């Protein structure tokens, strides 16, 4: 075993230690807990890189570390660690972003004199711990456990400024909506455990393998055909994914989650909470790969969300809101990629998105600091001159988000679209998904450059924008690191170039094809084509790439031209009713509030009335009847001794007569 793997559990345990330290001693530390957090996540990053290097050399690792509940004659529930190319890649990404967010927090939180910093750093540490442990979880139960912890941490962090009403409401919504998804996920976990007797991801005893074997063997579970049962379980788990990765219809919590500190948003959107959902699908892709129905549903949920969220991103005024909708949209792409069997494309986009979205959020954070905590883009303008580092890095991130060559987002988004097209050419229904995703490319370009133009170009529209506050090194350093990554990360898997020039430069694909055989890309491809029955057309990658690029550039150019002027107006408003509809987020929030307050709360009150009136009424009724009856009967006791004596005498006579009659004395 490679030495790196011995130390791998520490990747998650370092941030746990920083959580404990910040919680217990944060008050007394000079940076209120930032330093332990930075050191811990930095150490995690180093170990992660070490692990990745070991994986690069072809080693993989799967070990059970801890028995949670030991069953003597039944299944034991265990925690283990799984280090393969996918988890190693994700560990590096998560620990890197977590580290950068900690550094950025020095400038964003400490320098701004926030109170409650020990709590902030403790929660951040716990957040990183949960996500890292989730990433290297070797079974679905452990994944669920840390998935939930990630949810709780984001609850705590979104509500960091709990003294205001809005964060308190947003945190509740975030947890409740994701909990609704997790309900289905938990049924899925229990179902998988009960069906296969294991929740392990890899190996011949892993549940994806057992599912494949069950389908091949034509088994039935609870009277349901194995393939349908697997589809059902897969869709149940997908419920959790839709909740966490903010896919339609459980996406509503994510824009509200902007109430948390911007650093937290960066972490949630790029590397932790939201990424967890898509990562989970990638992690157990072998399970989905055997079910064409589940794959198709993933693809359509993803494609629809990509387009749907992009339309809402177009009309937002708050810089963080635009980014929030872009996140929803981008995760839609990843889901689409997974749904059409483009495992590498989706993981590639997951990685790139982590870099450029963290960059954009931290950039937005920098802008917000500079703007004295104003977030409305219409109050900004012309910040390019004052914040050069922020501007150039933000621009790199925006180009990546919009999908402009050669920035990272282009390569991965193009690959997702390409995979969808290949499948769609053979199975026409997927063309619809492809078309939705393609339309979203245009909108992405448009809203991204609308945001860039409104924020940085034109002229300052308020005093705050004219005299921005400077930002320190702790803000600039993370931006630069991420800016470089957002620019170059795409070079590791340039599919159009590789195919056209016939070069062996698909490094990520090679990377993901190594490791355990059951979780290798090649195995997944075989499963998707042979078990799920997907077939792919043979189309060259160049033309689709050009189509996507043209749309992205067109959108970006339109956005830039419309808004990068001295006095920008809002032309989208001319759409009238459609504008209002989109602006109100398609009344999704109203619907969910109605569901919670209009329906559920009313039902609860009805149940309460029923309980009080019918059930407790019966109980009290019985007692009232007894009391009434008692008070009637006691009227016999008139308090006059003679009456008692008469009653006694009469009773005795009556009794005697009774005996006499029935005893046959007469």
């Amino acid at each position: 075993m490679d030495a790196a793997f011995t130390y791998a559990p520490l990747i998650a345990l370092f941030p746990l230690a920083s959580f404990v330290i910040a919680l217990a001693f944060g008050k007394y530390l000079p940076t209120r807990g930032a330093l332990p957090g930075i050191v811990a996540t930095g150490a995690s990053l180093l170990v992660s890189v070490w692990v990745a290097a070991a994986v690069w050399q072809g080693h993989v690792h799967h070990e059970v570390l801890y028995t949670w509940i030991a069953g003597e004659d039944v299944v034991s529930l265990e925690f283990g660690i799984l280090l393969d190319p996918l988890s190693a890649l994700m560990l590096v990404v998560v620990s890197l972003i977590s580290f950068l967010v900690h550094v950025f927090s020095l400038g964003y939180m400490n320098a701004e004199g926030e109170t409650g910093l020990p709590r902030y750093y403790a929660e951040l540490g716990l957040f990183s711990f949960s996500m890292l442990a989730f990433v290297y979880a070797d079974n679905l139960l452990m994944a669920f456990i840390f998935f939930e912890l990630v949810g709780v941490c984001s609850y705590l962090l979104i509500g960091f400024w709990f003294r205001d009403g809005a964060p308190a409401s947003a945190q509740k919504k975030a947890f409740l909506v994701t909990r609704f998804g997790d309900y289905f996920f938990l049924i899925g976990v229990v179902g998988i455990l009960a069906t296969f007797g294991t929740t392990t991801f890899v190996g011949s005893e892993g549940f994806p393998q057992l599912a494949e074997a069950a389908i091949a063997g034509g088994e039935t579970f609870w009277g349901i055909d194995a393939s349908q049962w697997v589809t059902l379980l897969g869709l149940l788990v997908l419920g959790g994914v839709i909740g966490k990765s903010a896919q339609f219809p459980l996406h509503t919590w994510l824009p509200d989650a902007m109430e948390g500190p911007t650093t937290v948003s960066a972490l949630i959107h790029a590397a932790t909470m939201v990424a967890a959902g898509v990562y989970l699908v990638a992690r157990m892709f072998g399970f989905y790969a055997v079910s064409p129905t589940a794959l198709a549903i993933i693809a359509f949920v993803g494609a629809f969300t990509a387009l749907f969220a992009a339309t809402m991103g177009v009309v937002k005024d708050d810089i963080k809101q635009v980014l929030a909708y872009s996140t929803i949209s981008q995760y839609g792409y990843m889901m689409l990629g997974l749904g059409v069997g483009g495992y590498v494309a989706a993981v590639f986009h997951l990685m790139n998105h982590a870099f450029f979205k963290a960059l954009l959020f931290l950039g937005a954070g920098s802008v917000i600091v500079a703007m004295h905590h104003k977030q409305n883009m219409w109050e900004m303008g012309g910040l390019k001159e004052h914040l050069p580092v922020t501007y150039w890095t933000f621009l790199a991130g925006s180009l990546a988000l919009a999908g402009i060559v050669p920035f990272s987002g282009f390569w991965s988004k193009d690959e997702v679209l390409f995979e969808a097209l290949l499948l769609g050419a053979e199975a026409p229904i997927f063309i619809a998904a492809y078309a939705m995703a393609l339309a979203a490319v245009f909108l992405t370009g448009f809203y991204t450059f609308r945001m860039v133009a409104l924020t940085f170009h034109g002229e300052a529209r308020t005093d705050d924008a004219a005299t921005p506050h400077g930002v320190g090194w702790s803000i600039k350093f993370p931006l630069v690191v991420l800016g470089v990554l957002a620019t170059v990360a795409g070079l590791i898997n340039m599919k159009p170039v590789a195919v056209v020039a016939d070069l062996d430069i698909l490094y990520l694909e090679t990377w993901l094809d190594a490791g355990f055989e059951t979780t290798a890309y090649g195995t997944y491809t075989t499963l998707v084509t042979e078990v799920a029955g997907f077939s792919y057309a043979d189309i060259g990658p160049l033309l689709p790439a050009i189509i996507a690029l043209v749309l992205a550039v067109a959108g970006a150019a339109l956005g830039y031209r419309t808004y990068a002027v001295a006095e920008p107006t809002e032309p989208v408003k001319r759409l009238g009713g459609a504008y209002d509809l989109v602006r109100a987020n398609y009344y999704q929030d109203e619907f969910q509030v109605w569901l919670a307050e209009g329906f559920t709360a009313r039902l609860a009150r009805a149940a309460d009335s029923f309980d009080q009136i019918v059930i407790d009424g019966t109980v009290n009724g019985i007692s009232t009847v007894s009391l009434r009856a008692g008070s009637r009967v006691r009227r016999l006791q008139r308090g006059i001794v003679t009456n008692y004596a008469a009653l006694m005498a009469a009773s005795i006579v009556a009794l005697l007569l009774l005996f006499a009659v029935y005893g046959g004395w007469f």
Partner: protein
Amino acid sequence: MAAPMEAYLLLSAALFCVGLFGVLTRRNALMFLISVELMLNAANINLVAFSLYHGNLTGQTFALFVIALAAAEVAIGLGIIMVLNRQYDDVDVTRAATMRW
């Protein structure tokens, strides 16, 4: 020749009825108490009579017990009557009705 059994029983029944009549009709607590004593003694006559009839002494023993009991009862009864008298200035049993309900 001793009197027949029926005679004792009739005497006892008659005495009991006299006592019962007293209890049911009188309002004076003293008369009440006396009537109760009559009923007890009716029972005593029965006990002694049966004792004689069966030829064992258990009945007579019980009669002695009842006499002792009656003495104790009279003591308590008189006590109660004294209290009644102190409270209401007479010994009418129907007046002491505050403890009902």
